């Protein structure tokens, strides 16, 4: 196996995106993503079984497209990489089953990797296929999507990742979806809230910042909670409706978004300060949120923290980040996974590679 610049095909099926990525070392060759988001719109959130069925149908065509985009022969890959977890169990299993079969058919080693660490690995790649670069370490990583909200301390991409905190209830992206529903906006909520909030006043309503009170900060310094915020928004809206008043949707959206962004960035910046790490990396689909990026830029600049935000096509769930992480494992001399690993919906972030 080529351990210097391994050619790796990565398969990602942890949520509602079927991602196939191909990298050579840290160079991105293909990043094919098929999303079942539209199928979930009528349900107002990701339906696991709908997502899993969509993965099965999308996987073959996505592999073919990625191989064509990369201009390689499938038989030339050095290894197959796949997300073992965390994520939706039934969805993960589609990718795991396919990856194992591909590994046997091609007689190539397989690397089962951690989805969250994969988001950090996305920073290795240039979205336009230019030369990649090392992730500067140590770094704090804030990963925010519809499925997860996690704060990590990454000392080494392939051997030392620590979970500092995560959401204790809803993921941030989920909160956007739920508040969008309260405001009568369609799914997915993130872009809708972003659009409506543009003309609103973020200081119009002071919504609660979850787990930010002194008493919470003792036990949950780096944890997040968005379910109380969602309820507070719903209650505020209901009170206006009950009083027969018009709901200032733009102000509610802007104020809600501000509360989410404030908590996310405050805790991430605090982690940088606490651990003396002058770097913050963002990942996950919620990075698409314009206000999140803006506040992150302002506050990291003020605190002397270097901010890294991979291109959006690499922030949302994708197979390229999975392939990139596996390529790092291979380069670092890690042995492949056996064929016996499973899909682990709650895989801890400390388990960067699942070996068996």
């Amino acid at each position: 196996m080529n351990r210097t610049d391994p050619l790796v095909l990565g398969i990602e099926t942890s949520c509602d995106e079927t991602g196939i990525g191909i990298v050579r070392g840290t160079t991105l060759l293909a990043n094919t993503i098929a999303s079942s988001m539209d199928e979930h719109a009528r349900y107002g959130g990701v339906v696991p079984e709908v997502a899993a069925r969509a993965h099965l149908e999308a996987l073959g065509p996505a592999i073919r497209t990625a191989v064509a985009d990369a201009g390689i022969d499938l038989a030339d890959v050095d290894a197959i990489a796949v997300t073992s977890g965390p994520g939706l169990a039934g969805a993960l299993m589609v990718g795991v089953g396919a990856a194992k079969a591909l590994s046997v058919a091609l007689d190539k080693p397989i690397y089962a990797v951690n989805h969250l660490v994969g988001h950090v690995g996305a920073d290795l790649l240039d979205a336009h296929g230019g030369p990649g670069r090392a992730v500067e370490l140590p770094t704090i990583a804030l990963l925010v999507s519809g499925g997860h909200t996690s704060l990590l301390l990454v000392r080494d991409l392939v051997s030392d990742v620590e979970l500092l905190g995560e959401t204790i209830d809803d993921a941030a992206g989920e909160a956007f979806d739920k508040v969008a529903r309260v405001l009568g906006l369609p799914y997915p909520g993130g872009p809708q809230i972003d659009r409506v909030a543009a003309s609103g006043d973020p200081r119009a309503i002071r919504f609660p910042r979850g787990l930010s009170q002194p008493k919470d900060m003792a036990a949950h310094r780096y944890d997040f909670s968005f379910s109380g915020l969602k309820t507070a928004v719903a209650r505020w809206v209901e009170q206006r409706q009950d009083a027969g008043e018009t709901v200032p949707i733009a102000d509610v959206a802007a104020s809600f978004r501000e509360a989410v962004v404030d908590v996310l960035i405050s805790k991430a910046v605090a982690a940088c300060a606490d651990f003396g790490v002058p770097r913050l990396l963002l990942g996950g689909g919620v990075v698409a949120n314009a206000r999140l990026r803006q506040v992150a830029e302002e506050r990291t600049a003020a605190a002397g923290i270097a901010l890294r935000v991979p291109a959006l096509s690499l922030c949302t769930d994708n197979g390229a980040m999975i392939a990139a992480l596996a390529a790092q494992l291979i380069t670092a001399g890690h042995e492949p996974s056996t064929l016996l690993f499973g899909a682990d919906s709650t895989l801890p972030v400390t388990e960067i590679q699942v070996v068996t």
Partner: protein
Amino acid sequence: MLLAIDTSAGSSVAVVDRDGGVLSERSVPDTMRHAEVIGDLIKGSLDDAGVSVARLSGVAVGMGPGPFTGLRVGIAAARAFGLGAGKPVVRVVSHDAIAYERYRAGHLGGMLVVTDARRRELYWSAYVGVDEHGLPLREDGPGLCKPDDVPHAGLARVDAAEVSAGALGMLAEFLFLHGRPFAGSEPLYLRSPDVTLSNGPKRVSG
């Protein structure tokens, strides 16, 4: 020569040859570990048969009926294997493999194949017998029903807990040989995803 995969019940993988019969078969009856075992079963079956990937002419896969999570693992694996090996994938109704095996073992006349669909439901398929080549003739189903509503009470009922990939693969060989149709491309889940359509936001204030 075919690699055959079925995960509609447990996980079963075989290598079959039209003339040589079932060259190898490995099965794990556990209905909860499809993703864990599938890779090893494929590798092991090929090794047992002493057959290289290049010598296969295709992949046969059971399309169900079967509970969705497990069923999908085998179909995903078969499609990915076919893609990696550059071989075609042919699809077989998993119940047909059960019927084929029973008829080959001497069963005569009609047969109702019944398998567990979980959630206190059953999958069924009705057969009237075999054609001139000994291939099962499915006349009705596959269907899904409550245990008390199993149709075709007059047929001999065959309750099966496993599907043999060896039988499935051999059936695929003869379906191909005799120009009989394979199953459709849709997995036979026979059940819609569990979802509740949202009726707008729920009130949070009293």
